[in-house]
């Protein structure tokens, strides 16, 4: 990569931020798996399939946001996080919570 040839930040800030996104993706994966476990039991019904589809959708959405950001962080002087990225990450979290609340209720 050409960016690596430019002056590298001695504090490794982009790398640290990238790893923070990875950790967050990992947390999101765990929560999405728990959400799937919450809905799925022995028999497969429409409710279970909806739960599975919704959890997977939220997980993929978060993965997409994180992936975009991780790629952007490859630059030597990355731009700040976009508002859309921040809002999407928060919306994914909230969607998992709301979805879980609906199932638990």
């Amino acid at each position: 990569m050409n960016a690596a040839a430019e002056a590298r930040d001695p504090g490794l800030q982009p790398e640290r931020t990238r790893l923070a996104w990875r950790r967050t993706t990992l947390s999101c994966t765990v929560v999405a798996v728990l959400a799937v476990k919450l809905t799925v039991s022995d028999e497969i019904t429409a409710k279970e399939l909806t739960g599975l589809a919704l959890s997977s959708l939220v997980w993929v959405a978060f993965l997409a946001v994180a992936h975009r950001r991780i790629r952007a962080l490859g630059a030597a002087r990355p731009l700040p996080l976009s508002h859309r990225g921040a809002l999407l990450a928060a919306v994914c979290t909230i969607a998992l919570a709301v979805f879980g609340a609906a199932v638990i209720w």
Partner: protein
Amino acid sequence: MSDFVQSLRLWFAPQRIRDEGETPDYRFSLANERTFLAWIRTALALVGGGFAVDQFLPDLRWGVRVGLALALLAGGVLCALRAVNHWVRCERAMRRGEDLPVSRFPAVLSLSVAVVALAMVVLVVFGWAGR
């Protein structure tokens, strides 16, 4: 509260923030982003905790179990909203060269988590003694 509504408007108006002040050192923005992500992880942990209460404490009465789980899930939602809000406000403060915003949220959150944890300890111990 009007302060909150005002920053709520900033969530959806990135241009308004970009017009203000000067762009801070990119490292400060990245540090702010990591703080935001740490709050998102806290929110995810609370949501996961809510799921876990429902899954792994099946002996509790329905009302207690659902109450605890919903309290944790609500905490997760609040935490995620607050993450965005704090991130936006910090970003704006850095552009304007102001002090970073302070807030009561961490204290409130830690007290609530402590209360929920105590409630769980009491419930589990009593459930175990009552068996």
